[in-house]
């Protein structure tokens, strides 16, 4: 309940700051890009605030607990994305004068069909990204307080949609900048505090991970989704109603909603489809997404998706359009790289502590709650409770800021690109999009935030990344080439994800490339775009359309602003 109480001031502050944005809200530009008057420092705080989502705040530590130290490559890719953005996209993109990515596509290539296709891609990416945010909100709230999963999902959806529908991008900017500072404090202070509180023994174990084989004390595990446990040595289990039984060797199905207490000293059962944390591969600093045969390929695949995907994330690109000119957009990107770097020094601390203190979360598949579950293991008194409350508030700030940006681009795609309308339709689209995103989140409890988000990155990397890079730097790009490339990238990446989700298991390196398809879908999209463009002829104005993106701000007449 204390954790719940910590959320109330956060939610109220979010709504109050959101209301500040309502003043002087008249046009689409006011709503979508805060009238383009945001300074680089405020904007980079807002960019970072929006970007540090559930995947960063909770997902990385959770993935590290589950998959090992190699999960720390995810944040490296997340931060490197802004470097790619800074080098290739930020300033020219801002100078295009477009409000959204579909706008940019039309401004550069003059094709309404490309605009519609881009709007569809925005919806796919934002959907893959929004659902895990809401899902984790529900999961965290149910982990720290006795509320059902759906309550957190609905609260997060409702607060974000209300603040955004009223205040638009101006509200989102202040809220996200405020929440970046909040998240930074609420992530770093508890990390140091926990390290100090945990004592020398835990700290020593954290850097010397052994395999998790024995329950070191009576361990309570709540299963929110059904799993199959393979028991290798009989283990005594106490049910919630007090009955004790001994699980024999072999496979046992545990249904969703059960809570079991495993007796001290028993051998830890293994979960089908994953290795216990702390094993021989766990401490290796490379990712092994499928089996453990191709760690280098897996690592580079994830890096490709996250680095190139960041460039194409529609809600991130939209933030750059709030800068007054190209130069400040570029400065925003540069400051963002540094700000993110500070934050990402700490997920590893939580991950290493989780292996020592809450390894049992791997049994229930709830590794995403590791960060908020830690304090209670370190201290049973007021310090533990306070730290749980702080971390819960920080995690909620993460969902709120990211979901806000995502809802805004969804609204932009629907009410600005697909069915152009005024301010009223934009506001209605925000509420509508939130209503559509909540139901899938109610059913997605079993999929890790990190995985879903990486798929969002993969689709973005295979569609918008080639569109933006070639659109900005290559004057021979034709509308037909861009259409074909975006369509090929969308089909290939979403097809691979569909096979990974619903299809048969693919063994070996091919399996890595199905689960993490970016290394072949991105080159494919680039190749299709280049080949189709070379077969055609670019329009006569293509040269000018490219050059005006690179003309510096001091030489731009009023017609180019």
């Amino acid at each position, binding site marked *: 309940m204390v954790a719940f109480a910590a959320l109330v001031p956060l939610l109220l502050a979010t709504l109050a700051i959101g209301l500040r944005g309502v003043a002087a809200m008249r*046009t*689409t530009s006011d709503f979508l890009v805060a009238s383009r008057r945001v300074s680089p420092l405020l904007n980079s705080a807002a960019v970072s605030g929006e970007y540090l989502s559930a995947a960063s705040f909770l997902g990385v530590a959770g993935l590290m607990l589950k998959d090992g*130290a*190699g999960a*720390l*490559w995810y944040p*490296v*890719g997340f*931060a*490197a994305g*802004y*470097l*790619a953005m*800074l*080098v290739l996209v930020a300033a020219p993109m801002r100078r295009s004068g477009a*409000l959204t990515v579909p*706008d940019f596509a*039309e*401004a550069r290539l*003059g094709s309404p069909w490309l605009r519609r296709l881009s709007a569809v891609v925005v919806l796919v990416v934002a959907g893959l990204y929004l659902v895990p945010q809401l899902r984790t909100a529900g999961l965290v709230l149910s982990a720290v307080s006795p509320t059902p999963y759906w309550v957190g999902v609905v609260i997060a959806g409702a607060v974000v949609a209300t603040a955004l529908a009223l205040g638009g991008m101006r509200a989102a900017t202040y809220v996200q900048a405020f929440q970046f500072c909040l998240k930074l404090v609420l992530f770093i202070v508890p990390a140091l505090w926990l390290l100090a509180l945990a004592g020398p023994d835990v700290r020593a174990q954290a*850097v010397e991970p052994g395999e998790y084989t024995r329950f070191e004390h009576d361990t309570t595990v709540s299963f929110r989704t059904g799993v199959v446990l393979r028991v290798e040595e009989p283990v005594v289990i106490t049910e919630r109603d007090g009955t004790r039984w001994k699980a024999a060797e072999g496979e046992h199905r545990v249904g969703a909603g059960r809570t079991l207490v495993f007796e001290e000293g028993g051998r830890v059962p293994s979960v089908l489809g994953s290795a216990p944390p702390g094993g021989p591969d766990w*401490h*290796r*600093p*490379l990712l092994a997404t499928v089996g453990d045969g191709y*760690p*280098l390929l897996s*690592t*580079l695949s994830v*890096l490709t998706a996250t*680095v190139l995907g960041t460039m194409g994330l529609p809600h991130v690109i939209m933030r750059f359009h709030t800068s007054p000119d190209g130069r400040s957009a*570029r*400065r925003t*990107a*540069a400051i963002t*790289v*540094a700000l993110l*770097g500070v934050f*990402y*020094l700490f997920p590893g601390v939580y991950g*290493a502590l989780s292996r020592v203190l809450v390894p049992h979360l791997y049994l229930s598949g709830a590794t995403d709650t590791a960060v908020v579950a830690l304090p209670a293991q370190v201290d049973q008194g007021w310090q533990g409770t306070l730290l749980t409350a702080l971390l819960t508030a920080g995690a909620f700030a993460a969902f709120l800021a990211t979901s806000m940006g995502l809802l805004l681009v969804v609204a932009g795609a629907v*009410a*600005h690109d697909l069915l*152009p*309308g*005024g301010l009223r*339709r934009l506001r209605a689209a925000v509420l509508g999009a939130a209503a559509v995103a909540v139901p899938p989140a109610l059913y997605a409890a079993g999929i890790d935030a990190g995985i879903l988000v990486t798929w969002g990155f993969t689709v973005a990397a295979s569609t918008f990344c080639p569109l933006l890079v070639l659109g900005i*730097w290559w004057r021979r790009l034709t509308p037909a080439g861009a259409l074909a490339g975006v369509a090929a990238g969308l089909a290939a990446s979403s097809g691979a994800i569909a096979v990974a989700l619903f299809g048969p298991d693919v063994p070996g390196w091919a399996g890595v490339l199905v689960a993490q398809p970016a290394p072949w879908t991105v080159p494919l999209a680039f190749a299709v775009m280049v080949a189709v463009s070379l077969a055609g002829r670019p329009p006569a*104005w293509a040269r*000018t*359309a*490219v*050059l*005006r993106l*690179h*003309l*510096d701000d001091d*030489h731009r*007449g009023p*017609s180019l602003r």
Partner: protein
Amino acid sequence: MDRPRRVAVTSPQTRLAHARGRARGRWRVARLDPADAERAEHLLRRQRRQAVAALLLTGLVLVGLPVLLWSRPDLDAARLLGVPASWIIIGAVPYPAMAAVGLWQLLRAERIERGR
């Protein structure tokens, strides 16, 4: 006496435009003055060269570090302040390196635009 009712005064064309929605203007062919075009052409070429250099540097960090860790498993056993050296290489080294590349790219790109 009743207060007079306030009415909005707009031209019929404005009303029509409002009713249609005014999300975006019509698409127009891009135009650029010849002098500006020449300047932009020069900037594009120099920025492209700078971008390639910055990308190579970024790629060196992002491909080089995984390859280093993959080829040198002994780094897992080595310790720096008690922490495995390989954890420091992924957890701490990339961020200052990337921030430095970012700063360099920013300064170079702005210098190119100021006209060398």
